[in-house]
C-alpha cells in the first residue's frame, strides 16, 4: 500500500517535471509564427526546420562543440585536483584546514555581474582570451570548491579503519587511493562529475565574457536569437532541447556509480 502511494506520487512529480520540457519540445517542432499564433497541445504542422538550421549552420553547432570541449576540460581538471584535496580535508588535520575549506566555498558566493569585467582583464593579460582553457579555468573557480566539498562528504562517510588496515597491509597512499579508495566512493565521484559538468555547461556570464568566436559556447550563441525582429522561440527551443542531450548522456554513464553506492569490505 505504501509502495503504491510512493509510485503514484513519484509518477505525478515526474509528470510535472516533464511538462515544461514537453512544451520546449513542442515549441521546437513549430515555426515561430505558429507558436505565437495559437495554442496547440500537439504540433499540427510539425517541422524539423529549427533543428536543421542548427545542424547545418556552423555558427550554431560549433557552439555545442566549444561548450563540450571546455566543459570536459573543466570536469577533468576539477576532479583531478579535487580528489587529493578532498582526501586531505577528510583525513588529515593541518594548519589552516578549516579556514582553507571555507575560503574555497566563498568562491561560489560573489555576484557575477561586476566580477566578470576583471576576469576579462585578467585573461586578456595572460593571453588566454577566446580559448577553451580560459573558460575551463575560470569555471574552476566555482566547480573545484564544489567538487572538493561533495567528495569530502563522501570520503568522510568511509571509516578511517579502512585506510589504516590498507596501510598496515603495505599499500602506499597513491596505490591505496586509486585502487581501493576511489572505487569505494564512486557514487560521490559520479555525482561530482555530473555537477561539475552541469554547472560549467549552464554558466553563461563568464563563458560569454571570455570568448569571442573561437570558443563561444551554445548558451551565449542562443542569446543571438534575441534580435531586432524579436525572439525566434522555435529556434531557441530547438537549441534548448539539444543542450539537454550531452548532460543526459553524462548522467546515463555515471548512473550506475550513483545508484550502486557503497560496498563495505573490499579491502
Amino acid at each position, binding site marked *: 500500500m505504501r509502495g503504491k502511494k510512493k509510485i503514484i*506520487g*513519484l509518477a505525478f512529480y*515526474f509528470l510535472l*517535471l*516533464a*511538462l*515544461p520540457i514537453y512544451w520546449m519540445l513542442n*515549441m521546437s517542432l513549430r515555426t515561430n509564427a505558429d507558436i505565437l499564433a495559437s*495554442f496547440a497541445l500537439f504540433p499540427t504542422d510539425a517541422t524539423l526546420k529549427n533543428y536543421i538550421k542548427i545542424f547545418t549552420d556552423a555558427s550554431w553547432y560549433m557552439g555545442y562543440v566549444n561548450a563540450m570541449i571546455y566543459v570536459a576540460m573543466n570536469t577533468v*581538471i576539477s576532479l583531478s*585536483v579535487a580528489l*587529493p*584535496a578532498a582526501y*586531505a580535508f577528510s583525513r*588529515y*588535520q*593541518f*594548519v589552516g584546514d578549516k579556514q582553507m575549506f571555507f575560503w574555497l*566555498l*566563498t568562491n561560489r*558566493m*560573489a*555576484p557575477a*555581474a*561586476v*566580477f566578470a*569585467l*576583471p*576576469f576579462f*582583464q*585578467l585573461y586578456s593579460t595572460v593571453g588566454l582570451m577566446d580559448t577553451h582553457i580560459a573558460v575551463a*579555468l575560470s569555471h*574552476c*573557480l566555482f566547480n*573545484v570548491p*564544489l567538487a572538493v566539498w*561533495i567528495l*569530502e*562528504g*563522501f570520503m568522510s*562517510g568511509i571509516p*578511517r579503519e579502512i585506510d589504516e588496515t590498507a596501510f598496515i597491509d603495505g599499500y602506499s597512499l597513491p596505490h591505496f587511493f586509486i585502487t581501493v579508495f576511489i572505487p569505494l566512493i564512486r*557514487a*560521490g565521484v559520479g*555525482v561530482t562529475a*555530473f555537477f561539475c559538468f552541469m554547472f560549467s555547461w549552464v554558466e*553563461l556570464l563568464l563563458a560569454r565574457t571570455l570568448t569571442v568566436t573561437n570558443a563561444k559556447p551554445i*548558451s551565449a550563441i*542562443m542569446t543571438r536569437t534575441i534580435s531586432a525582429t524579436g525572439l525566434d*522561440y522555435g529556434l531557441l527551443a530547438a537549441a534548448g532541447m539539444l*543542450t*539537454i542531450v550531452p548532460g*543526459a548522456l553524462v*548522467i*546515463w554513464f555515471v*548512473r550506475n556509480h*550513483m*545508484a550502486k*553506492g*557503497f560496498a563495505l569490505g573490499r579491502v
Partner: protein
Amino acid sequence: MEKWPDNKAWLLVLPVFVIVAFSAIIPLLTVINYSVQDILAPGQSVFVGTDWFKEMLQDYRLHDALWRQFLFSGLVLVIEMPLGILIALALPKRGWGVSFSLVTLALPLLIPWNTIGTIWIIFTRPDIGLLGHGIRSLLGITFDHTARPLDAWITLMMMEVWHWTPLVALLAYAGLRAIPEAYYQAAKIDGASSWSTFLYVQLPKMRGVLTIAFLLRFMDSFLIYAEPFVLTGGGPGNSTTFLSIYLVKIALGQFDLGPGAAFSLIYFAIVLLFSFIFYQALQRVGRGEKV
C-alpha cells in the same frame, strides 16, 4: 576518532589552492579597487574612499531588494529541501527505474538559465502556453505574471522549484545510496519504524550532502539573476527586482562601476555571513546527533 595531524597534507591541497586562487584573488582585488574610486573615464578616476559604500548602504531600493531576496531564498529552502528529500526517498533503488529517474531528474538542470526563462515566458502565457492555458481552462483564472506581482512570484517560485529541486533530490539520493546495507539491517533488527529509521539512520548519514544542498540552494537562489531577469525583468513594478537584477541595473545599465563594485562587495559580504552561519549551524547539528 581524531583526524591524523600532518601538515604534509597541504601538498594534496596545493593544486586546488593554486587553481582557485588564480581566478579568485585578482578579480576580487580589482573589484575592491573599483569600489573606492569614481571612474570618470577609462584611465581617469578619483579616489573616493568609502563614499560608494555609504551611498549604497543608504539606498532604500537596495534594502527593498534585500528583503525580497530573503523572502525568495527562504521560500526556496523551505519548499525545495523537504521536497527533494522526499523524492530521493521515493526513488527506486534498483532496476531500470533508477536510470530513468536519474536522467529525468537531471533534465531541468541541464538547460542554460536564460533559456529556462524564455521557455517559461511562453509556457505560462494564458493564450499560447501549456501552463497558462491549462490554468485558465481548468481553474478559470487568467494567470498574468506581467501585470500582477503575486502571479509573478508564483510563476518564479514554480520555475525555481521545477528547476532546482532535482539538485536536492540527486544529492540526497546519492547520500542515501552511500549508506551501507548493514545500517538498515541493524535498524530492522531493532524493530525501528520507517520514520525512526529515517530520523536516526538516514538523516544523520545524509547530513553532509544535505549541508551541501542547503548551502548551494541558499547561495544560488540568493544570487539568482538570469531566470527572473528573462521572465519578469524585475517587474511588475519592482516586485521581483532581486539584488542581482538591481546590481546589474546600477553597474552595467548606468555604467556606475564604483557604486556597482561597492554593491557587489556588500552583497558578497551578506552571502558570506549567512553561509558561514548556516555552515556552522549545520555542522553543530550533526555533532549533536552523533552523541
